């Protein structure tokens, strides 16, 4: 422990104490349960329900509970809305997770190098971050998608490529703060190299805000993916919550349910992730509770 130079408080917070604090936060627990439920629904729902989300099962625009119509009604092609809602988050969740992982990784590398080395490394990386922050993310991602062609892979790639600046700024700020602390100096005094200090001394202590930022980033990436699918710029062969809304939006005056339920699914997914993020924040940093 002393060798890695990790401050004792940080270990406490990220260990058992943190988990207990998380569990004491009711909103966070509700978020965890809802999110787990949504993941399970997407994993097993389509198989258990057994209806193909692409198949025509009843008269188009059958309302929920109308005669023999399926539970959540049918869309403009007579496809079962419930079948779409059950599995429509698969792409969204995977693309959101991959994109968020990319965005956090890029941000972590750029932010830690800038914060640790300072001077010209810092100004170079910060100018790059400013450049990426200047370009409106959705427009930028749309341009990247036209250049790369639409598929789930390119959607994840373009979201990751445009959304890393926030993570980079946060990481840089944490590194700037921590690198001046006593235990970093101690670590250097016993002869630790740059990489070791960055990865084993500073990074563990910068984790709490980064984990909270990760929760926010995953939420944003999911909304981002949904927006791209809504515009019809994603992979058109897969049914996703966003694309269901996009394809049915022309018929909302006749059939509100085709758009309402997929939207609730997206909303609950992002809400549950944010609630967990809040819980993590409280667990790590009780002083900031409720802010």
């Amino acid at each position, binding site marked *: 422990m002393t060798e890695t130079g990790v401050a004792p408080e940080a270990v406490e917070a990220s260990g058992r104490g943190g988990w207990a604090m998380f569990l004491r936060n009711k909103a966070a627990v509700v978020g965890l349960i809802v999110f787990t439920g949504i993941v399970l629904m997407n994993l097993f729902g389509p198989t258990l329900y057994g209806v193909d989300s692409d198949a025509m099962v009843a008269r188009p625009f059958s309302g929920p509970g109308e005669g023999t119509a399926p539970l959540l009604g049918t869309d403009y092609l007579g496809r079962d809305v419930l079948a779409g809602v059950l599995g429509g988050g698969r792409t969204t969740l995977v693309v959101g997770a991959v994109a968020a992982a990319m965005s956090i990784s890029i941000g972590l590398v750029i932010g830690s190098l800038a914060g640790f080395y300072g001077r010209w490394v810092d100004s170079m990386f910060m*100018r790059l971050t400013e*450049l990426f922050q*200047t370009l409106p993310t959705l427009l930028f991602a749309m341009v990247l998608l*036209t250049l790369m062609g639409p598929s789930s892979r390119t959607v994840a790639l373009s979201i990751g490529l445009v959304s890393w600046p926030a993570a980079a700024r946060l990481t840089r700020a944490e590194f700037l703060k921590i690198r001046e602390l006593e235990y970093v100096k101690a670590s250097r005094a016993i002869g630790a190299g740059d990489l070791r200090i960055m990865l084993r001394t500073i990074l563990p202590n910068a984790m709490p805000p980064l984990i909270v930022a990760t929760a926010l980033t995953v939420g944003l990436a999911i909304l981002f993916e949904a927006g791209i699918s809504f515009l019809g710029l994603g992979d058109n062969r897969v049914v996703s919550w966003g694309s269901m*809304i996009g394809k049915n939006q022309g018929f909302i005056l006749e059939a509100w349910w085709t758009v309402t339920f997929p939207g609730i699914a997206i909303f609950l997914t992002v809400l549950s992730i*944010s609630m967990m993020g809040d819980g993590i924040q409280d667990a790590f940093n009780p002083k900031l509770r409720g802010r």
Partner: protein
Amino acid sequence: MLTLARGIGLRLVQAFGLLLAVIVLNFILIQIAPGDVALTLAGEQGSGSPEFLAAVRARFGLDQPLLVQLFRYVWNVLQFDLGHSYYWERPVMDLIQEKLFSTVLLAGTALAFAMTIGVILGVFTARRPESPASHGVTFLSLVGYALPVFWTAIMLLVVFVAKLDLFPIGGMEDPRFEGGTIAHIVDVAYHLVLPAFTLGVIYLAYYSRLARASMLDVLESDYIRTARAKGVDERSVVYRHALRNALIPVVTIAGLQFGALFSGAVLVETVFSWPGMGRLAYEAIIRQDTPLMMGLLIVSAALVIVANLLTDVVYRMIDPRIRVGGK
């Protein structure tokens, strides 16, 4: 005053550098795009007649070395020559100019709405942090953040247009409209309500939370304790001493959010048929109109840079401690 002017001058130079970087990045994107650069610039499909492509090649100097091409591209863009839209068969700059005002109007209204209400809610709840209203605002900000903006837009259409028939279904003005200037402004404002509200809700969630946290921080600080100890009355402590300092992070973030506002505008404008740059971008991408898309990226980035500059000026005026060179 002199340092203020110098500080702003320095920021102007930085802003110009940033704009150049945006243009260079665009150039790189066009270069690495698969396929013929002339075709990319001309629009991916159609209009591929040899004469037209030759004209494009000549204008962008595609037969020249890459560095010459880059300088030519930057030079063209700085003179507001963003190329030719393949679909509309018109200069990209003209198309964007026509839509610029409506997008700035929409984004500006949304931002003003979100900031005003957000700060009021934040300050109001920060005074009683454990009250139910305060927790309510925290929860509402989570809800606002999690709402997919395009879905909110459609739901508002269902409720306020389809069911209640209170607002127009879309567009920026009534096409059959006849009347004077004042009546015209009222008509546009009427069309603006739902789109601006939709776009503003996400940021309202954000600002109320930010203002609340910032206000809580400031209220705990030493100088507020001092002010209270001196016997300054509570209203004056909150509104004169604390609010001014609590606004600084809100203004800073607002400047950074302008780009995000554009992204939201693409979705909101698409749903409400608002004739702005966002909808133009959506149409451009559907029609694979690459020059228009690239032009929109440059112009929106330029607008973000201008917005950031304005924020910086406001920031310097609120916070007199900021001096050029200082952190």
